[in-house]
């Protein structure tokens, strides 16, 4: 059976879709058969970040409703053979996701894949609870600021009580904390929560810290998961995160403010 990973946060705009794309690509690049599913029905974005928006024919809701089969809806990534994308529908709303339908799709996918990455919509309503219900692992994406931290905390409470594992009394979902948009300079100036602050509030296993980087925006605009931009700090940090998820012992990077020279100031890191 595939391992189901949900990328979630509660708050919007913290980098869930970027993380889902990076995580899926990172796992696939290491040879694992991976599918990434967009649960944000009505506000789909994953196809853009993955650069496959012009190849969408059928979507997740079509499959749930039996209007298309999985193979018709899955889009194979052009850069990596073992990565597939299941896009969301832009014309329906999140009520189209039924627990039964989602369960069936995940079960079918589970037979042919090693990892299923679920990109959760923001909020704690139906779409988000559907995305996390069947999960085995959760990556909670958090920005180092108080409202994001509190929303993540709320999401962790829901993960602990309303998932399939919780309802069946099985081993709980394995939760990981991913800090994104981290700026060591701003932490130093006291404008942002530090890694220690966030970990103290959430008391959670830290799987990675992604530095604030122009590379993320560039990658999104170009439809290339940032993990492929191995020259950028964000790309390196996402690669570290995937390695840590797979059990590698990789030290954290980019936690300290670096003294920048004039050239790196001009051309970015």
């Amino acid at each position: 059976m595939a391992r189901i990973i949900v990328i979630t946060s509660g708050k919007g705009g913290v980098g869930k879709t970027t993380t889902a794309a990076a995580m899926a690509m990172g796992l696939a690049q290491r040879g694992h058969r991976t599918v990434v599913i967009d649960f944000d029905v009505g506000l789909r974005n994953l196809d853009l970040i993955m650069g496959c928006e012009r190849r969408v024919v059928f979507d997740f809701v079509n499959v749930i409703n039996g209007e298309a089969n999985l193979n018709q809806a899955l889009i194979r990534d052009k850069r990596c053979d073992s990565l597939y994308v299941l896009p969301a529908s832009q014309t329906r709303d999140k009520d189209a996701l039924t627990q039964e339908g989602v369960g069936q799709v995940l079960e079918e996918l589970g037979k042919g894949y090693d990892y299923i990455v679920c990109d959760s919509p923001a909020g704690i309503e139906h779409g988000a609870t559907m995305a996390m219900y069947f999960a085995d692992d959760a990556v909670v994406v958090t920005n180092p600021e108080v409202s994001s931290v509190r929303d993540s905390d709320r999401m962790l409470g829901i993960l602990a009580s309303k998932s399939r594992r919780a309802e069946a009394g099985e081993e709980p979902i394995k939760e990981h904390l991913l800090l994104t948009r981290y700026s060591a300079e701003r932490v130093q100036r006291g404008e942002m929560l530090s890694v220690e602050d966030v970990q103290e509030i959430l008391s959670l296993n830290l799987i990675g810290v992604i530095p604030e980087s122009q590379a993320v925006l560039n990658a999104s605009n170009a439809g290339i998961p940032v993990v492929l931009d191995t020259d950028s700090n964000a790309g390196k940090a996402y690669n570290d995160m995937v390695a840590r998820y797979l059990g590698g012992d990789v030290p954290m990077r980019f936690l300290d403010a670096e003294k920048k020279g004039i050239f790196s100031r001009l051309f970015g890191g």
Partner: protein
Amino acid sequence: MAVQIPTEGATAAAPAFELKASSFTLPVIRLLSLDMDTVETQLEAKVDQAPGFFRNTPVVIDLSELAQEKGNVGFPHLVGLLRGLGMIPVGVRGGGAAQNDAARAMELAILGDNGRSGRQHAEAPQQSGAEPPMGDTHGDHPPVSVLVDRPVRSGQRLYAAGGDLTIVGPVSSGAELMADGNIHVYGPLRGRVIAGLKGDIGARIFCRSLEAELVSVAGHYRVSENIPTDLKRRSVQVFLDHEVLRIEPLG
């Protein structure tokens, strides 16, 4: 099909109300005596212990112990007494026919029996005469202590009915802990904590690092803003001392 009632001017009038059913937990005052003067003395003493708990609280009068009594309950006196103590009597239950009529005359609702009157009768002999004639809600279930050994997250609510609540882990801001007895928190306490929920003035809160949004014992509470800074992030206990909520460092 609903019948369309034509309304002048408005073709599609927005509904002005919704009819919904909802259940509430109310304190029940189980009368054990018809002597209203005794009831008054003992009730005043009880209310004095936790005035905040009874202020503007709707209460139900349980007559199941007195249903066989021939004497008059004296509703006008009783209702006046309860109102005077800040409570809002809303109804009676378990009374005889004559008692129900008298209650109706005082505009009290007649509430249905919850089917547990037999059990309550069985428990009645245990109530000693020295006890105030309060509906002792602790008697409804045996004291149960609850232990939680994982973090309590924002938005989660935990309630230990009739006993103590112990948390071995952090309690996040936005989480709520309630217990009829004491509350113990061994991680940082950042949420809201309510001990002695049903008015037990002996209940206490113990914590290793006080960063709570609100602490309350038997209806007396203090919000974070009113907790002295020198007590924050310290090991403390919170308890009632002559109706004053006190926060004292431990050790």
